[in-house]
């Protein structure tokens, strides 16, 4: 049961990474990487149950935050070219 779920999550990760490699625009690539990060969280959670030691859930929790902050940081860098800039400056 867990192995089948894990296989489905891996297939989804491969499809998302394919979009991240192929994507015609930069935003397609960011979307694919963001989705692969979400699937990493599911993969860690299911892996803990598959090996009978569900102790990796703290790592999954950290991955959610890292994925969110990383996506926003990359978006801000692409939009402004500078991470230290405020949103209201000079617009």
């Amino acid at each position, binding site marked *: *049961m867990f192995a089948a779920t894990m296989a489905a999550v891996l297939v989804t990760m491969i499809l*998302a990474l394919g979009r991240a490699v192929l994507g015609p*625009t930069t935003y397609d690539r960011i979307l694919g990487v*963001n989705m692969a990060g*979400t699937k990493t969280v599911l993969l860690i959670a299911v892996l803990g149950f598959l090996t009978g030691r569900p102790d990796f859930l703290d790592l999954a929790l950290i991955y959610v935050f890292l994925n969110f902050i990383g996506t*926003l940081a990359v978006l801000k860098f692409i939009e402004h070219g500078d991470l230290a800039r405020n949103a209201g400056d000079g617009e």
Partner: protein
Amino acid sequence: METIDIASWVVLMLGAIFCVIGGIGLHRLPDFFSRLHGAGITDTLGAGLILFGLMLQAGLTLITVKLVFILAILWLTSPTSTHAIAKAARLAGLEPKLDTSDDASEGAS
């Protein structure tokens, strides 16, 4: 216990199917703004059903509490990041690909 096992099976398999559907949608849809729909399916229904199936397996323990936290934070952050990506793409001048075949057929008829 047997009933909970069967229910957990069904929920996990449904979540896996939704994940694969969203992945195929992300890969096959023609336009950036329609690809956001595929990402939305996996982030809400796929992740929600898989984590709910794991909760049914774990029972009332600390593991279930951690899974509830992961699910709540995932459901808060992933629509926010999807919205941020869509807004950034719109501000950068990316236009949705509109279906113009209806206008063409109306003009022809």
